[in-house]
C-alpha cells in the first residue's frame, strides 16, 4: 500500500522526532554521505560534453524522484513509519517556523560564519559533521534569504506558471530551453537579473550556505525542497494527462544533444530504470 508524504508544517512532534532520528542514524552509518557524493558526481553542466542526468536536462525530475526514493528507503529501513515531508515554500515562508524549528532542521546560520547552531544538525551536537564538501568546512551553513543581498522565495505564481506549461520539455533539452514544464520548474533563465534563476534554483539560493553549492545535499532541507518539486510534477501530470515525459526518442546523431540526454525509454544512470518507469509512482507514495 502506498505511503504518504506530508506537508512538513503538519507533522506531529513524534513524526518530527522520528524523521530527524532516522536521518541521524543513516548519517552515523555513513549512508548519508553517499547521497551527498552522488549528487556532486552527477552534476554535469550543459556547456560541456557528456551525458546529463540530474540537472539541465529533461531527467532532472525523474533523477531527483529516484534519488528521493533511495533516501526514503534508507530512512524507512531505520524506521518504517518515516516518509520524507515536503516543504511548500510558496506557503511556509517564515524563517521562524517549520521547517526551521529546533525539533526539525534548526534555524538560520549565525552571522559571523553562517554556522547552523540550533537544532539536531548543529555541529556542536557531534551528529552532523560534513564529510563530503566543496570546502574544508565541517559544519552546516545557511544564509536564509541572503542577508547581504536579500532575495525572496519563489511564489505560488511561479509554480502556477510552470504548471501552465502544456509540454514537459522542449529542445534543446538543456538550461536554455525557454519553454516546457521541466525548465520552468528547474529555473534556468538568461541574463544577469533574478529572472536568470527561478523556482527550484531560487530556493537553493534563498537557503544559501551548503544549499548553494554542489554539496547541497548536506542540508537535509534538500530532501524537503525536492519532495515539493516532485509534488509539483505530480500536479502537472494530473493537469496534463495527455502529456508525457519528453523526449520520447533519443536525439539523433545529427543533434548536439546526441547521447547527452536520457529519452523516455532509456536507462537513467546510475539506476537500472527509465523515466517512463518513474512517471507513475502512485503505487509507492502519494502526497497529502
Amino acid at each position, binding site marked *: 500500500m502506498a505511503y504518504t508524504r506530508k506537508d512538513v508544517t503538519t507533522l506531529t512532534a513524534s513524526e518530527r522526532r522520528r524523521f530527524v532520528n532516522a536521518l541521524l542514524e543513516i548519517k552515523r552509518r555513513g549512508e548519508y554521505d553517499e547521497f551527498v557524493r552522488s549528487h556532486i558526481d552527477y552534476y554535469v553542466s550543459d556547456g560541456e560534453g557528456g551525458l546529463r542526468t540530474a540537472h539541465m536536462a529533461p531527467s532532472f525530475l525523474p533523477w531527483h524522484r529516484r534519488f528521493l526514493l533511495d533516501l526514503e528507503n534508507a530512512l524507512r529501513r531505520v524506521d518504517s513509519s518515516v516518509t520524507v515531508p515536503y516543504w511548500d515554500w510558496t506557503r511556509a515562508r517564515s524563517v521562524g517556523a517549520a521547517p526551521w524549528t529546533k525539533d526539525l532542521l534548526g534555524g538560520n546560520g549565525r552571522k559571523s560564519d553562517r554556522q547552523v547552531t540550533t537544532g539536531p544538525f548543529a555541529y556542536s551536537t557531534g551528529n552532523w559533521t560534513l564529510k563530503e*564538501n566543496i570546502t574544508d568546512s565541517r559544519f552546516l551553513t545557511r544564509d536564509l534569504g541572503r542577508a547581504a543581498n536579500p532575495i525572496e522565495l519563489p511564489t505560488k505564481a511561479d509554480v502556477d506558471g510552470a504548471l501552465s506549461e502544456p509540454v514537459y520539455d522542449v529542445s534543446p533539452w538543456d538550461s536554455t530551453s525557454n519553454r516546457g514544464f521541466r525548465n520552468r520548474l528547474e529555473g534556468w533563465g538568461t541574463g544577469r537579473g533574478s529572472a536568470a534563476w527561478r523556482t527550484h534554483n531560487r530556493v537553493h539560493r534563498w537557503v544559501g550556505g551548503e544549499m548553494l553549492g554542489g554539496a547541497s545535499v548536506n542540508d537535509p532541507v534538500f530532501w524537503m525542497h525536492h519532495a515539493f518539486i516532485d509534488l509539483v510534477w505530480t500536479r502537472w501530470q494530473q493537469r496534463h494527462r495527455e502529456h508525457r515525459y519528453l523526449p520520447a526518442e533519443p536525439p539523433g546523431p545529427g543533434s548536439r544533444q546526441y547521447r547527452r540526454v*536520457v529519452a523516455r525509454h532509456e536507462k537513467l544512470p546510475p539506476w537500472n530504470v527509465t523515466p517512463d518507469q518513474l512517471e507513475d509512482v502512485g503505487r509507492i507514495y502519494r502526497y497529502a
Partner: protein
Amino acid sequence: MTTSVDGVPVPAATAGPARPRSRRELLRVLLAPAAALVLTPVVAASWPTDPHPDPTLAGPGSGFAFDEVYRGRRIQGVPTRTGGRAAAVDPRWQVTVDGRPLHLMRRADGTWLSMVDHYRSYPTPLEAARAAVDELGPGEQLRDTGEGDGGTEQGGHHGLHA
C-alpha cells in the same frame, strides 16, 4: 558503457555512472600546461591580465587571464589551450582561490558556474570566481583534493571526497 569519439561517456544498453573512462588520463593532459603557468609567474605574466574585462569584448572563452585580490582572497584564472580542437576557440579555465582549485562549469549559453555557487551562472570565469569568494566564510578554504580538480572538464566532478 561505451565511449564516443571525443571520449565522452554515453548511455549504453547497460546503465552505469556517466564517468570519463580515465579521469587521471584526462587530467594529466588537461592540467599539465595549466599547472606550469600557475606555478611559474614569469610565464603566467605573459598572459594578458585584465582584472576588469568587459564581457561584451570577450569572446566565447570569456576574457583574459586574471590575478587579483578580491575581499582578501587571491583569485587567479588562466585559460588552458588544451583539451581538443574545440579548446582553441573555447578554452577551458584553470581557476584558483588562495591557490586552491575552484571547479568551474560551462553552461550552454556560454556562462559559468562554480562548485561553490551552483544554481546560477555568471558571464565570465572572473565573475564566477568572485561570486564563489562572496560565499566563503571567514577562514573557509576550498577543499584541496590534491588532484588538481580546478579545471573545467568533460563530465561530472570527481575527486572531491574527503
